[in-house]
């Protein structure tokens, strides 16, 4: 069921989301042609275009 096997043989789940957490905006801009980066942006854009409702609820027993 997992979508890939890691180098050490253990099963793992690989996200299409790229890790740019350590980069600056300028560094990200310099990677503009990267296909993984482009896919991540496409996913985020799609989510923003069809936002779900804020998840609200909780009716405390107390």
């Amino acid at each position, binding site marked *: 069921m997992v979508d890939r096997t890691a180098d050490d043989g253990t099963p793992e789940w690989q*996200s299409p989301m790229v890790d740019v957490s350590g980069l600056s905006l300028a560094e990200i801009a310099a990677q503009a042609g990267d296909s993984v980066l482009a896919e991540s942006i496409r996913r985020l854009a799609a989510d923003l275009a069809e936002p779900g409702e804020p*998840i609200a609820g909780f009716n405390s027993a107390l």
Partner: protein
Amino acid sequence: MRTFRLSDAEFAALAAGRPTAATLGELRKAQLSRHLLLLREIGTVPAWYAGPDARHRLADPMTALHTAATLVARRAGSAPPPEHNSSARILTATHLGRTLRVRLEDTDPLRARLGLDPADPLDDAAAAAWQHHLEGAWRLLVERHRAAAETVAAVLSVIVPVHPDPGAGGISATSADAYGAVALSAPADATSLAVGLLHETQHSILNAVRVLFDLVRPSTELGYSPWRADPRPPFGILHGAYAYLAVTRFWRGEAARSASGETARSGDELASDDLGMGGHSQLAAFEFARWRAAVVEAADGLLASAVLTAAGRRFAGALRDEVLGWLDEPVPPVIGRLAAGANTEHRVRWRLENLTVEPATVATLVAAWRSGAAPPAVPAAAVRPATGRALERSDRLRLVHDLLRSERDQSLPPGSGVRPGTDAQLGENHRTGASAYLKNADARYLQGDHDGALAGYLAGLEEFPAEIALWAGVALTSPYRMVRERPELVRAVWRTLGVELRTVANWWQ
């Protein structure tokens, strides 16, 4: 460039509500990445990005919310959101060396985007009340639910006070655009706040998981959620199950602690009155028994559908497996009966309020009845379009809670006595014309006198056939399987035939 990945063991532990610190670190990095990529899409570098606290602002949920709102507005050609006006109210709670630090956000103009009506800026007394309850909640979590406390501290950074819902004990919300921010109505006590924080932290985590992995396929399908009165999309149902996984674990711990007779220690003593618990061990057992079954039911429903992706199936499966082992843990029989009843009532109410039986289906069943045939198989009823958020409201549930809270009143032990309450204390159902029937029948139901209660509910339905509380009462106390499983069918056929409900319900037995 590196993409995020989780080992299957890490992913399953995350789904089971036991994320490792490393996994939470990955989710945080994913949120930072999301924020940076949204800023890149906007194309204009905000002024704060050049400041000394840029990394802090990148991780701030309200800044991320502002960035997302700015991008959406830009793409829509509309005006950008108003600028930040962040609150300076910082709440800090430290216990046994663990610290929870959050901003009480009562000024940011975007705080309404968490989905609830925000409270006005707080005065000092209101802020002090939040601080007091946060300290109590944090003590409770750190002392009794250490792993959950660590998760809350790693995720939560902003609380947005919101106006309460007059019909609910407490309301709360999260937004996928604001990881680590929760909107909460003012808590009644420390326990309510602890449960609310656990609940909403789970929503934030699941929103972050969704950034990394598609768990649910695109679908317009709506279905039953044990926590909401309105029809919900699959991801909403998964959200409920994931949030209540943490809530169930909390009450499991509280119930076990009560059952073992463990008492608070001197020095670190958690005074029950401070927590708002009042020694309510039976209430803890009830919440545990109720929500463990609801979580499994919701996960089972998702797993039986075709809406989950491979990752979604793994996630829902691990979530379900975590709770499945709790189903066999003993609770007092009267508590188990009332908890199962609360779930049955919720499901029956939901079906009666949200499902529509096609006239052709009713005609088929009525024709079969009149010809003396056995009831034929008929299509599932259609779900009415969603009409907006609706929370559970049940006067009978309120009576159950009152009964469980009264456990120290020796005149009112559960199952042997109940004080039904005055009309002024009862809710909307009990103030309708059906109130006399409900008042007496509900008292019998709480006492465990199902035959007596059923007679009252059936008599009430003869006079008030549309009263859903009476239908739910019949489902709780009768042997009629179809009234519990497909009450909308029984109601539709009964109304058409005009014969005794017992006779129609027996037809399906």
